C-alpha cells in the first residue's frame, strides 16, 4: 500500500524542481518591472542635514526618488512594534525611510526607482546626503556604559528589563554548599539565507488591487501590514511567498521597509516595481542575532546538584526593537534546559546599540541559553572533579516528572510546561553514540600524533510549535487531484512533501495526487508564519484535521451511494470501499463530483458520477442544512501551549598545537522531536542546523568596529563553514510523542543549531585546559589564549602539549 506514508523517509518532492533551476524565486518574477534600489546610511549614528538629488537627475532611466517627505499617512509613522510586552518599557522603531536621524549603517534613507537595477544603483551613487555625525554605541559593554545614547530619550540605552524568577534566588545562593560565578560572551551572527529579501509589487489601477510577492516567512501578516500602512482594504491586497531561498528567521520580521515602499511606488507610478536585496544590503540592513554578555551564579551541593541559578544577561538588540523582547524571553526561559533548577532567576537587559536590528535567527536566543546552562554544568563538573556527563545526569528532570512545570512564562505568554520527554534516554544514547567513555583513549592516540583532543556535550530543551493557530484546507477535485493549502510559508523545509504525506495517509490517496500550496493569501488567509519550529506542529496538525474532515464527508457520501454504514468503509488508493472488499468501491473523485448537486457534465468524471446519483428526496433541499457543496474541509489547530522537543549533542575536536586550527572529528546528535512525519527531512534539518552551529562556534561573527562599521559585510570577508568544515553528523533518534497535538509531533527546524556553541566550547576547553568564555573562537584567539599567562585554566587541565 503506497498511501500510508506518514513516518516514511519519502524523498522531497520539491527537490527536483529546486535543484534543476525550475524554482521560482522572487527575482524570477517581473522581468519587465521597474527596479528599486536604496540609498543607505554610511554612518552608524548621524543626523541627516541634506539630501541633494541634483546630480542624479541626468541619469537616463531614472523614474523616481523617494525620501521620508514622500511618506504620507500611516507610512510616515514609525514601523510597528510587532510584539509589545509590558517589560519592553522603551520600544523604538525606525521609519520606512529615515526621518532626520539614522541609527545604524544600512538604514534606508532614499529609495530610487529606475528602468533597471544598474541605473537605480547609478542614481543612488549620485544622490548626495549630508550627515552630521553623532556619537556611536557598539557592543553591550558600551551600551551599558551609556557614554553615548542610541535614542535621545533612552539615556541608559535599555529598552527592556526582562525578569523571570521562581523564588528567592539570592537566599538560595546564600544557603548553597557551593557557589561559582562567571562571565562569558557570545558574538553576533546572522541568518544569512542564500536568497536575500525581495519584494515585487503590481498595482491594478482599474481593479484597485495590489499583488505583492515577498520573500517572506509570513505572507498573511505582510498582507495585513501593507493594507494597514498603505490604507487599503485587506481584500484588495494579496501577498504570495514564492519559492524562498532560506529564511532562518530573518524573513519573519515584517513589514520590512521595502515591503511597504515597493508597493507604495508601484501604486504611485502605476507600474510594476521590484527590489531584490543584494548581499551587502543583507549584511547591513536586514537583521543579526546572538550577541550577549552573561553573568552566571550557580549554587550546588557537593554531589553537583544545582540548588539555585541566577543569570544576568545583557542582550544587544541593535538600534530598534520591532520584534520586541522575544529573544530575551526565549533565552531566559529556555536556559534551564532539561534540568531541575529549584530556584531560578533570569534578568535580561535588552540594550540599544548603533548596529542593525537583532531579531530571531534559527535558535532565537536558545543557543545563548544553552551556552549559559551547559557551560555552568561544565564548571560544576570541573569544580567537583566529576565527569561532565555525570553532573548532567544528576540534574536531569526524571521521566516520571512530566508534565514538568518550570514555573516560567514562555514567548507565547503561556507557562513553560514540558509536555513530555526522556532526557535520561537522550544522555545514555548520546554517550554511547559518541563514545564518551573512550575519550581518554582517543586523547592518548591524538597526543601520540602531536595533537590535542577534547570532547564536549550539550543538552537542550526547545519550546516548539507556539500558537496561536494555523489552518489547513483540503479539497478533492473531480479530477481526483487533492489540493492542500496552509497559510504559513515554506523556505525549503520540505513542506510540499511532509504535508502531502500527512494528507495521503489521512485520506488514503496516492501522494502523487496531492498538491500542496503554502504562503499564498489567495489560497489561505489566516496564518501566523513559519518560525519557532512550528510548521509541522501547527500546519501539520491543522492539515491532518482538515483531511479527516474530508474523509468523514467522503465516507458519508459514499455510505449513501454504496448503501453501507460509513463505519464499514475505508479509503484505499483513492477509492472508498467496504472494508476488505476491493473492487466494490467508488473513487474519491466521483464522490467529489457527487458532493456538488450542480453537475454540468463538463468532463468524464461528472458523466460517470451520474450513475451513482440517486433521485434525492424531493421534500429536502439539495444541499442539506449545515452541509456545503464540494468535497473539501477547512480546519484549524490551536494548541494550549508550546510542545517541548529536546536533544543532546556531543563533539570531539582535535587541535593542531602549531596552528591552533580546530578540527571537528566527530559530531553526534540524539534528537527527540516526537513523532516524525519524515525522518529524512528531520535529519536534513539537523544537518543544516549543525552546520550553522559549527559556523556560530568557530567562524561567524559580525565584525563591527568602534564606529559601527560592519567590516566583513560580504562573503569574501564573512567566514562561514564550507562542506570541508562541517563534520559528518551521526544521528540517533528518540521518539517521545507530544500529548498536546493529534499527530504527537514536536518541532525540529531549529534544534540542530542550539547546542553547537556550548558543546564545541566545552570540547576546546577539554582539549586545551584553558577556560573558554567567549565564543566564537578562532585559531588566532586560541593561540593568544594559550600564550596568555593570566588565562584561566581548568582544574582538570587536560591535554596541554608544549
Amino acid at each position, binding site marked *: 500500500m503506497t498511501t500510508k506514508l506518514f513516518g516514511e523517509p519519502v524523498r522531497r518532492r520539491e527537490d527536483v524542481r529546486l535543484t534543476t533551476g525550475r524554482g521560482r524565486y522572487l527575482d524570477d518574477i517581473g522581468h519587465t518591472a521597474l527596479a528599486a534600489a536604496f540609498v543607505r546610511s554610511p554612518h552608524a549614528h548621524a543626523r541627516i542635514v541634506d*539630501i*541633494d*538629488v*541634483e546630480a*542624479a*537627475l*541626468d541619469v537616463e*532611466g*531614472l*523614474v*523616481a*526618488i*523617494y*525620501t521620508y*517627505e*514622500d*511618506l*504620507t*499617512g500611516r507610512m*510616515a509613522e514609525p514601523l510597528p512594534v510587532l510584539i509589545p510586552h509590558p517589560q519592553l518599557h522603551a520600544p523604538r522603531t525606525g521609519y520606512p525611510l529615515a526621518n532626520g536621524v539614522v541609527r545604524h549603517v544600512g538604514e534606508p534613507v*532614499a529609495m530610487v526607482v*529606475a528602468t533597471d537595477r544598474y541605473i537605480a544603483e547609478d542614481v543612488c551613487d549620485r544622490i548626495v546626503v549630508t550627515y552630521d555625525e553623532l556619537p556611536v554605541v557598539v557592543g553591550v559593554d558600551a551600551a551599558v556604559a551609556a557614554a553615548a545614547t542610541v535614542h535621545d530619550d533612552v539615556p541608559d540605552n535599555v529598552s527592556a528589563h526582562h525578569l523571570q524568577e521562581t523564588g528567592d534566588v539570592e537566599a538560595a545562593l546564600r544557603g548553597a554548599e557551593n557557589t561559582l560565578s562567571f562571565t562569558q560572551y557570545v558574538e553576533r551572527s546572522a541568518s544569512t539565507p542564500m536568497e536575500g529579501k525581495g519584494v515585487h509589487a503590481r498595482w491594478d489601477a482599474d481593479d484597485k488591487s495590489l499583488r505583492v510577492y515577498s520573500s517572506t516567512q509570513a505572507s498573511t501578516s505582510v498582507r495585513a501590514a501593507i493594507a494597514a500602512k498603505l490604507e487599503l482594504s485587506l481584500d484588495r491586497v494579496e501577498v504570495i511567498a514564492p519559492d524562498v531561498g532560506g529564511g532562518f528567521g530573518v524573513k519573519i520580521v515584517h513589514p520590512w521597509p521595502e515591503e511597504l515602499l515597493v508597493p507604495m*511606488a508601484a*501604486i*504611485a*507610478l*502605476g507600474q510594476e516595481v521590484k527590489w531584490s536585496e543584494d548581499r551587502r544590503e543583507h549584511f547591513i540592513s536586514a537583521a543579526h542575532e546572538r550577541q550577549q554578555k552573561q553573568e552566571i551564579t550557580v549554587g550546588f551541593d557537593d554531589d553537583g546538584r544545582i540548588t539555585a541559578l541566577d543569570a544576568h544577561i545583557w542582550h544587544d538588540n541593535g538600534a530598534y526593537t520591532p520584534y520586541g523582547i522575544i529573544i530575551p524571553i526565549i533565552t531566559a526561559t529556555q536556559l534551564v534546559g532539561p534540568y531541575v533548577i529549584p530556584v531560578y532567576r533570569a534578568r535580561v537587559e535588552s540594550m540599544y546599540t548603533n548596529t542593525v536590528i537583532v531579531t530571531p535567527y534559527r535558535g532565537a536566543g536558545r543557543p545563548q541559553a544553552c551556552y549559559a546552562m551547559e557551560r555552568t554544568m561544565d564548571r560544576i563538573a570541573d569544580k567537583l572533579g566529576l565527569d561532565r556527563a555525570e553532573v548532567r545526569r544528576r540534574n536531569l528532570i526524571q521521566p516520571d516528572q512530566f508534565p514538568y512545570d518550570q514555573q516560567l512564562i514562555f514567548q507565547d505568554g503561556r507557562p513553560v510546561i514540558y509536555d513530555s520527554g526522556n532526557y535520561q534516554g537522550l544522555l545514555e544514547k548520546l554517550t554511547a553514540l559518541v563514545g564518551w567513555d573512550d575519550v581518554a583513549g582517543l586523547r592518548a592516540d591524538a597526543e601520540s600524533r602531536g595533537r590535542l583532543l577534547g570532547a564536549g556535550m550539550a543538552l537542550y530543551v526547545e519550546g516548539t510549535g507556539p500558537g496561536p493557530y494555523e489552518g489547513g484546507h483540503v479539497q478533492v477535485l473531480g479530477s481526483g487531484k487533492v489540493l492542500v493549502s496552509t497559510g504559513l510559508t515554506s523556505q525549503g523545509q520540505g513542506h510540499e512533501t511532509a504535508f502531502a504525506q500527512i494528507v495521503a495517509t489521512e485520506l488514503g490517496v496516492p501522494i502523487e495526487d496531492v498538491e500542496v500550496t503554502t504562503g499564498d493569501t489567495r489560497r489561505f488567509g489566516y496564518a501566523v508564519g513559519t518560525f519557532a519550529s512550528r510548521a509541522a506542529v501547527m500546519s501539520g496538525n491543522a492539515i491532518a484535521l482538515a483531511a479527516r474532515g474530508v474523509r468523514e464527508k467522503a465516507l458519508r457520501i459514499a455510505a449513501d451511494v454504496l448503501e453501507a454504514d460509513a463505519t464499514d468503509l475505508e479509503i484505499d488508493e483513492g477509492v472508498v470501499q467496504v472494508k476488505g472488499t476491493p473492487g466494490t468501491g467508488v473513487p474519491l473523485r466521483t464522490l467529489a463530483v457527487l458532493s456538488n448537486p450542480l453537475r454540468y457534465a463538463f468532463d468524464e468524471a461528472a458523466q460517470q458520477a451520474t450513475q451513482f446519483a440517486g433521485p434525492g428526496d424531493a421534500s429536502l433541499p439539495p444541499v442539506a442544512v449545515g452541509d456545503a457543496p464540494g468535497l473539501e474541509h477547512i480546519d484549524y489547530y490551536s494548541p494550549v501551549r508550546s510542545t517541548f522537543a529536546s536533544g543532546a549533542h556531543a563533539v570531539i575536536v582535535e587541535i593542531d598545537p602549531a596552528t591552533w586550527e580546530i578540527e571537528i572529528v566527530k559530531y553526534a546528535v540524539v534528537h527527540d522531536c516526537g513523532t516524525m512525519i519524515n525522518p529524512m527531512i528531520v535529519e536534513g534539518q539537523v544537518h543544516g542546523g549543525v552546520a550553522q552551529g559549527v559556523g556560530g562556534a568557530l567562524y561567524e561573527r559580525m565584525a563591527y568596529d568602534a564606529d559601527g562599521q560592519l567590516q566583513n559585510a560580504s562573503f569574501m570577508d564573512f567566514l562561514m563553514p564550507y562542506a570541508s568544515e562541517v563534520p559528518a553528523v551521526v544521528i540517533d533518534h528518540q521518539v517521545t510523542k507530544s500529548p498536546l497535538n493529534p499527530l504527537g509531533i514536536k518541532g525540529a527546524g531549529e534544534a540542530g543549531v542550539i547546542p553547537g556553541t556550548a558543546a564545541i566550547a566545552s570540547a576546546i576547553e577539554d582539549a586545551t585546559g584553558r577556560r573558554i568564555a567567549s565564543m566564537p573562537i578562532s585559531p588566532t584567539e586560541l593561540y593568544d589564549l594559550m600564550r596568555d599567562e593570566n588565562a584561566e585554566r581548568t582544574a582538570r587541565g587536560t591535554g596541554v602539549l608544549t
Partner: protein
Amino acid sequence: MNLDGGAVLHADPEKVWSVITDPAVLARTIPGCESLEQVGDDSYKMQVSVGVGAIRGSYAGEVRLSDKEHPTSYVMHASGAGAPGNVRATVTIGLAPTGEGTALTYSADAVVGGPVAGVGQRMMTGVAKRMAGQFFKAIDDELTGAVVRIAAAPSAEVRGVETAPAEAPRVFAGNAAAQPSLSPDVQTVLLGVGIGGLLTALGVALGYLLGRRR
C-alpha cells in the same frame, strides 16, 4: 503650499520687466520650449519638452499674466498637461532693485496630478530648481549679452534661430525647436526644461505633497 525662490539679474527692474514679459525672449529662454503662441493679451499657449525621469514628456500648456504692477510684480497662471501628468500653478513674481541690478523673487502654489505626482518630491523639486535656474540664467544672459557672445562664436545658424521669430510675430519658436548644429555650450544652456512658472510649478509639487500628508 508655496515654493519660494529667487535670482539676481544684472539689469535694472525696468529692463528685466521688458525682457521677462517679452514672448520672443521667453520663447528662447524657457528651457525645453518648443513653441510659444500668443492667444490674447498676456495670454499664451506653449509646448514644452521635459526630459528627466518620469517627468519626461511633452507638455501642452497655457500661461496667463495678471495683476501686472509695472515694473515690480505680476502673477502668472500656468497649467500644463502631458503624458506624465498635469500641473496647475499660480506664481507671483516680484522685481526689486539691488546694487547688482534686480532681485527677482517668485512664490508658487501648485497642484500636480497623474503619474508625475508619484515620482517623489525631491526629484520634482530638483528638476524645478534646475529648470528655474536655467531659465533665469538664460534671462540674465539675454540682459548681459552673454547669449550673443556664445552664439557668435560657433556658427551663424544659432543666430538664425534666434532671429527666426521675427518672421512670425505671433508664434515664437523656442530653442528646443531649433534644428541641429547647436554648439555644445548652447545645448548645455538649453538642456533643461520648460518655462520658469510651469516648471517651477512642477517643483511645487512639494507643496502639493506636503498638503496631502497627515
